[in-house]
């Protein structure tokens, strides 16, 4: 089981993950990124790259986040690949500070 982007991404969508990924397995929509489980090689480089810690190994998800495994698979199939870093969504830095304070 590969890595999974969780809801912590939504609202920030920093895309630091994209710049680290060696196999371009990230997909994107207006809210967040998704990892294509077929292409992910489990390198784990995206995990420390994410400023808000939104990415986890699939088998390490807490029970309330397990649904994100299927969401990543489904949404990766429905959305385009993103190959380079983009500006984060408006308000991302404030949201990040709030998450880190928690």
């Amino acid at each position: 089981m590969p890595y999974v982007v969780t809801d912590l991404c939504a609202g920030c969508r920093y895309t630091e993950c994209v710049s680290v990924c060696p196999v371009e397995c990230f997909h994107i929509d207006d809210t967040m990124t998704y990892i294509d489980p077929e292409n992910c090689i489990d390198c784990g480089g995206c995990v420390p790259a994410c400023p808000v810690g939104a990415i986890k190994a699939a088998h390490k998800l807490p029970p309330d986040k397990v649904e994100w495994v299927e969401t990543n698979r489904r949404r990766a199939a429905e959305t385009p690949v993103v190959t380079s870093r983009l500006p984060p969504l408006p308000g991302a830095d404030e949201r990040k500070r709030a998450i880190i304070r928690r």
Partner: protein
Amino acid sequence: MAQSLVVGACPHDCPDTCSILTTVEDGKAVAVRGNPDHPFTRGRLCVKVNNYEERVYSEQRVLYPLKRVGAKGSGSFNRISWEEALREIATRWRTIIAESGAEAILPYSYLGTQGIINGLNVGDPLFNKLGASVSERTFCDSASCTAYMMTIGHTPGVDPESFVHSKYIILWACNTLSTNSHHWPFIEKARKAGAKLVVIDPVRTRTAGLADWHIQIRPGTDCALALAMIHIVVKENLVDHDYIDKHTIGFDELAARAESYTPEFAARETGIPAPDIVKLAREYATTPPAVVRIGVAVERHAGGGQTVRAIACLPALIGAWKHVGGGLLQLPIWAFPVNWPTLMRPDLQPAKMRVINTWRLGAALTGDLPAGPPIKSLVVYNANPMAMVTEQDKLERGLAREDLFTVVSEHFLTDTAKYADIVLPATTQLEQKDIMFSWGHLYLSYNNPAIAPLGEAVSNTELFRRLAAAMDIDDPFFFRSDDEMIEASMDWANPALQGISMEQLKQTGFARLSLQGPDEWAPHRDGNFPTPSGKCEFKSSIAEGGNFVVPLFRQGYGADQAGEPVDPLPHYIAPNENPATAPMKAEHYPLNLISPKSHAFLNSNYGNLPAQQVLAGEQQMVILHPEDAGSRGIVAGSPIRVFNERGSFEAFATLSADVMRGVVVAPAGYWHRSNRRGATVHAVTPPAYADLGRAPTFSDVLVQVATA
């Protein structure tokens, strides 16, 4: 909470040798991550090592010396002190040496760590001094090294980072995304600049799935393809005559030899359509810079050595070496000026030693030996033979011998360690100091210890200091500190290390060898091959000396080489076991089995750890083509038995059209005890040597598969 970041390097048997940053809080390692500052690591590790701290602190770790109390193999041990363990070992060894001679002692090791001071050669000086049997360790790359030496010498070849300049890239028997993943971005960059990527592999691996052209080839027939490529470039005059005249010898003989290796011949052997073979040769020869990267898997069959001989001839034929990003990449380790003789100390050896090839350990322990005494003591470190060598039933019988005194140094109670009389606890990479070469890039690395050793675990260097003391050796060489050993391990005066200071190396954790940069370096633009003639030897002068194993894999012992005659020119040796070469065997066992590395394991490392077992499955899985499964009534996920005349193992079936019809894939590394009926893929693999370097033929085997 005092937190610090310690820079180190991955210990594993992998070309990527990543730079690792370990976060330490109050003396405990809490996380590891790839070093973003290392140009090859680039902030990423891999599925094996991402949670390395979980390996370090696993409750399965052996942290104290153990002494067997139950039957051999029962895994029943009591904790003892180091003093008692060493006393017992020394007493038993002295008795064995007095009764049978030191040749009755056999060390067995490989690359549990490939650190320069804790790795391949750490035990060699002691066992050389004792006069123990020489362990000839040819598990991996041995045929390739011998073939390489015969053709282009011990050259590092093309810098992997130079691939960004290549326009035609062939990954031959290499699943880059699983076993060399840090190389991928350089290949990807080349593709974005217009390079064509060709992957040659019986299986549509992750890597093959991303290729521009995946060429599926019958296992073990790669030499036919390479020889046909030689045939085509010669016949169609796509060769670089200027480069050939100046920097090669034996072209006329090679051309004559290649005449019979037509595309049609190769098509029959490989299953690749002849027009594709012609297209590959033409594209390869006319799209400079063209580079071939060979993987270890290319040699694991009867003709593995000649396969690398043939492939190694190709770049010189087309003048590929003239360009940055053109040539061959196999083992950049040869760029590192390591003081191998100082590590191995062959000068300590008695004049004559007995050589035992250790991937045939089962045979050696059950009496199938060259002249000399039976093995009375086995010393295992940095290795797990129960998972990784052939003839496992013999190995089990051998390890179960009550008259065999077995010492195993380990992190865990592996299937091998369970047969030990004494188990000794070893440190992980976070608990020890080392300096690392790489066999996949050109960076020297330093591993700073991040934490103190757990329990009573010791580094291999400390283990062998203690064993030397226990055996009353008084030569101060055997009692040098780790720092002294590191200092002595490298030839610091060598130009490749110019400008690299130990202080800087310890601080940054890595330094690129002082060679030309990847945008300028074409190591054989003007020939300069480290061969006897200084040229690429299509007709090999070294071959006249017969078959040999490079001394690095034999504790530095150069004598008593196999010495069988070797044809000075490349030629095709068909696999021992496929339906064409062994039709009677194929009637009962019609499928070819290959055993590549598992994506989530590193050899058998991590086969016992939960994070990796989640990905690989806790039990062996075997991949079959849906048609081969369907005709046998096998459904996905069901238990199956894989068998031939040597034995059998059980696994769970995965069905995939990524695998060729007639080919079965059983990734290696699963532990014996994890599998149904407790056997691994090596219950069926053959003991036959490949043609060169005494390499194994683990992927040259016929099997049958049935529902279990």
